[in-house]
């Protein structure tokens, strides 16, 4: 059941039309509710998504399928079976958002719903940065991947995957860099499922635990020249091998479970990107 949900989430994430409008540059980045030293919630706006995390409530990730103007608001509709919605607009040195109830009809928006008010803070609190940093980075990277992989240019998709995952700047993916992608993907999927912060933390934790093992298995199956790194050429040459790289589950049941999920997630990601 869990795997089906993960696959669905990734499939849905990749099903974005290339024509979606972007969030204005000045509205992108992290916004906070409450005191900057101890914010009650954080909202991250990327080019085509909004992720909201808070201590007690489930996370919400809306990946915009389409946006339009509505009575002074930007009305964004997300991907997914429930087509989540977000209304946003710039306010005095801040941002206002409305997340309508699921039953509320579009033609009755914005209605009398009270907007959430967000503001910028000098720095992201360290705990929030540690919990969500990699996930939000992956969310942004995913948008670049979608753009590149939807272009139809031969080799552009594999190159984009390597570019987005490459931290060291050698235009190759190491085990650590692939593991980081796994952790980021874990966060995105958990956020899209509406997980609470502790579950998000657990998802990233399991992703991290199994991520290295997964990355090594993927490396073994794609690294043809045996240099311990994946190049764009190796990735584009044999995407099928990458997809089958779940290998043999080993270790404790927890680790096997995490491995299977992480591997399945990355497999779905790469399959989806290369197959579009």
């Amino acid at each position, binding site marked *: *059941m869990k795997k089906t949900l993960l696959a669905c989430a990734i499939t849905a994430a990749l099903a974005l039309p290339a024509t979606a409008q972007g969030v204005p540059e000045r509205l992108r980045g992290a916004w906070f509710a409450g005191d900057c030293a101890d914010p009650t919630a954080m909202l991250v706006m990327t080019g085509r998504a909004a992720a909201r995390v808070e201590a007690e409530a*489930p996370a919400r990730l809306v990946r915009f399928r389409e946006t339009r103007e509505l009575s002074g608001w930007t009305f964004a509709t997300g991907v*997914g*079976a*429930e*087509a989540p919605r977000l209304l946003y607009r710039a306010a005095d040195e801040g941002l206002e958002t409305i997340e309508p*109830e*699921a*039953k*509320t*009809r*579009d*033609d*009755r928006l914005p209605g009398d719903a009270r907007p959430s008010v967000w503001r910028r803070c000098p720095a992201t609190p360290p705990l929030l940065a540690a919990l969500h940093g990699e996930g939000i980075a992956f969310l942004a990277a995913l948008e670049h991947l979608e753009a590149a992989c939807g272009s139809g240019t031969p080799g552009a998709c594999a190159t984009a995957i390597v570019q987005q995952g490459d931290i060291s700047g050698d235009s190759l993916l190491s085990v650590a860099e692939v593991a980081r992608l796994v952790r980021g993907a874990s966060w995105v999927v958990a956020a899209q499922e*509406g997980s609470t912060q502790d579950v998000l933390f657990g998802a990233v934790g399991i992703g991290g635990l199994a991520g290295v093992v997964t990355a090594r298995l993927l490396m073994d199956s794609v690294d043809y020249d045996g240099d311990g790194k994946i190049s764009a050429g190796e990735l584009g040459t044999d995407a099928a091998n990458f997809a089958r790289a779940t290998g043999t589950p080993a270790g404790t049941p927890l680790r096997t479970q995490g491995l299977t999920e992480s591997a399945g997630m990355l497999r779905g990601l790469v399959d989806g990107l290369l197959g579009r």
Partner: protein
Amino acid sequence: MLPSRFRRMIAPALRTLLLTLLAIGPAMAQGQQPPNREFTVQNETDLILRELYVAPPNAADRGPDRLGADTVAPGANFRVRLGRTRDCVFDVTAIYGDGTEEARRRVDLCRNQRVVFGDPGLPTLDVTVANRSRMVLRELYASARGPSAWGPDRLGATVIEADSEFRMRLRSRDCVFDVRAVYEDDREEVKERVDLCANRAITFDRSTLPRPPSRTLVFLNRHVSTVQEVYVSASTESDWGPDRLGTTTLPVGGESTTAVEGECEMDIRVVFPNGGAEERREVDICANPRIVLRPGWVAMEELDDGSAATSSTGATRVRNAGRLPVVEIYAAPPGAPRGEDRLGADILPIGESVEVGPPDANACAADLVVVFRDGREVSRLGVDLCSGEEIEVR
């Protein structure tokens, strides 16, 4: 002796003063102020003295509560000031914490400035009463003369919260008492012939109460969403009690069994992950031990599974093939008003389907109206909701 010159000077003045005093003396005696009348009330009962009234005998109005905002605790005194009055005889009425009254008629407060309620000669028993149950203990009685003479509620206006204690004060020469506790749900627990002189503590925990019948209730989730929480509580209770699913959830298509103690009539509440909730009150769980949670279940005549029956006769499903969620579904007899939204607090996500039963068990034909989230309506008039077909709307 004063000098004679000085005596001559003040003699006229002294004479004038003396004459003045002689003249006004009787007048002063006639207008002398009445004395301040005060007395002490002594509470030697084992109840709080809540109100006190002092009035002339047989007066139509017994006047104000002389305690004002005060009360007199068992064993305590209170000074009552009546103000200036020449009256001596009064009726003094005490009202205790449990509402009972006691009156002293024609008390002469000039001769006796202390009014005692209760018998100060009786020994005092201080007993700690513990409520170790999970329910509020509402009333407490103690009787040395058997169940026919329970006397006043020893808690007065207070209660003993769950897992709390109360200090009960008894003025009596008796030691052996029957003690009776009445809980918030009206159930009673009696400890018989307890020696409160030997043991100054008594505990109530409902362990002696006969357990109410336990029933098994099965929930089947035929909704289009996971059920996050399920609550079941007696219709007579104001609290929903604990989430019957505990740390788990009830997925779509899933089944959950819970044991319910109490009578047959229960209220049921389910909560969805999006915070939406549905409730149905006064459900006879003895007649309906299986509750199928499905769109419209809160208003359906049949609460039991019915899945066997509907599958054999072919229940109709509505599939959302549109590009937005469906937010309302109506199915009513042809030509009739739409009735209630069959989705209740739920929605039908894109690509998913939901079972829509006939509006009447004996009539399958219905006008079906599906409302998408953008307000667009799709109607299917005169459809057969027993056909077993899937109706795709887009």
